[in-house]
């Protein structure tokens, strides 16, 4: 495949990040593992399709954000990733970010992430 021959440094970084995310997902319990993998691959594919190849500033920003999220995911206390979709019309009502108390039960803390309908933002951001 011609596209695989000469990958730029930034492309290698993105691929490395993707691989590390998948490795982190494998370490989690099996049912979570598949869910995490589907979320990650959806986000990466979405960005690969929508983000302009030359928009280096944004790609670097996404890589940095991804690295921070990877650190969080690698934390043994985190057991899962979940998303919820909200439509932009009801965004004010639907932004319901709930973070389980990590001190209560060690097996239940989850990273809740919200996903607007056309833009997967993995961090729970109040827009």
């Amino acid at each position, binding site marked *: 495949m011609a596209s695989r021959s000469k990958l730029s440094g930034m492309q290698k970084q993105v691929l490395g990040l993707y691989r590390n995310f998948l490795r982190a997902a494998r370490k989690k319990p099996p049912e979570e593992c598949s869910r995490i993998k589907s979320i990650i691959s959806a986000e990466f594919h979405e960005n690969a399709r929508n*983000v302009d190849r030359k*928009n280096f*500033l*944004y790609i*670097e*920003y996404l890589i*940095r954000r991804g690295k*921070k999220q990877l650190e969080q995911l690698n934390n043994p206390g985190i057991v899962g990733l979940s998303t919820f979709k909200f439509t932009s019309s009801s965004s004010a009502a639907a932004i319901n970010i709930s973070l389980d108390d990590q001190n209560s039960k060690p097996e239940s803390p989850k990273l809740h992430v919200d996903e607007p309908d056309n*833009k997967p*933002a993995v961090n729970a951001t109040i*827009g």
Partner: protein
Amino acid sequence: MATTRLLLRRGSAAGRVLPWRLVPAQLHSSQAEPPPAKPKRTKTFSIYRWNPDNPSKPYLHNYDIDLSDCGPMVLDALIKIKNEIDPSLTFRRSCREGICGSCAMNIDGDNGLACLTKIQSSGSASTITPLPHMFVVKDLVVDMTNFYNQYKSVEPWLKRKDPPPQPGKEILQSKKDRAKLDGMYECILCACCSTSCPSYWWNPETYLGPAALLHAHRWIQDSRDQYTKERLDAVNDEFKLYRCHTIKNCTHACPKGLNPAQQIESIKKLQLQ
């Protein structure tokens, strides 16, 4: 006679004829005169904008502010812009009195705290950009994780080899020894100095930067700390310490008036021993 005089005075002030009786002098003026209109002084602020949600090239957006209706500091202008003109302007701020270090940014080319920098009342536009050579998260907010990690790497806590002389009580320190810490403990970790250092721009991951080195020196100088030699050895690195070439931008930038360059010089001198 006194009443007539009173009437006359009131008549001239109010501009209307009062009934002929004793009118007590009023303490508060009931006349609703509008306060004298303050002359409008407009100043333009060129503020760096970049939105990660709609990523395009970063740009400088101009905002016009009436200075007569705004506080004296740059932070007041930013808050006024956010309240009245553009709520999407994003910046960090907390104490508004120069003690937290959140609002550090580059104002007209110089790093400083927005809450302590007075607005230049001259007519030319003021340029506000985030701290130089730092990754931007949004508008004026920068990514400080590298800076904080460097501070953590210095191990900024008291380390002792043997237990304190009086267990359960404070470790005593003479006034002279405490005076050695003056000029270093006041650092608020605003990052103005590190981000003004060209050496830090070119080697941000390896060079510790003036702020971290200032704190390293603060712990080296602390008489209660017993790991002085280990601390000096940890910093004694080609990149961690010796990227400093006494450019002295750090001392110029510090909003608290500290002198990181002097502390770094002091560390270098201690290394010779």
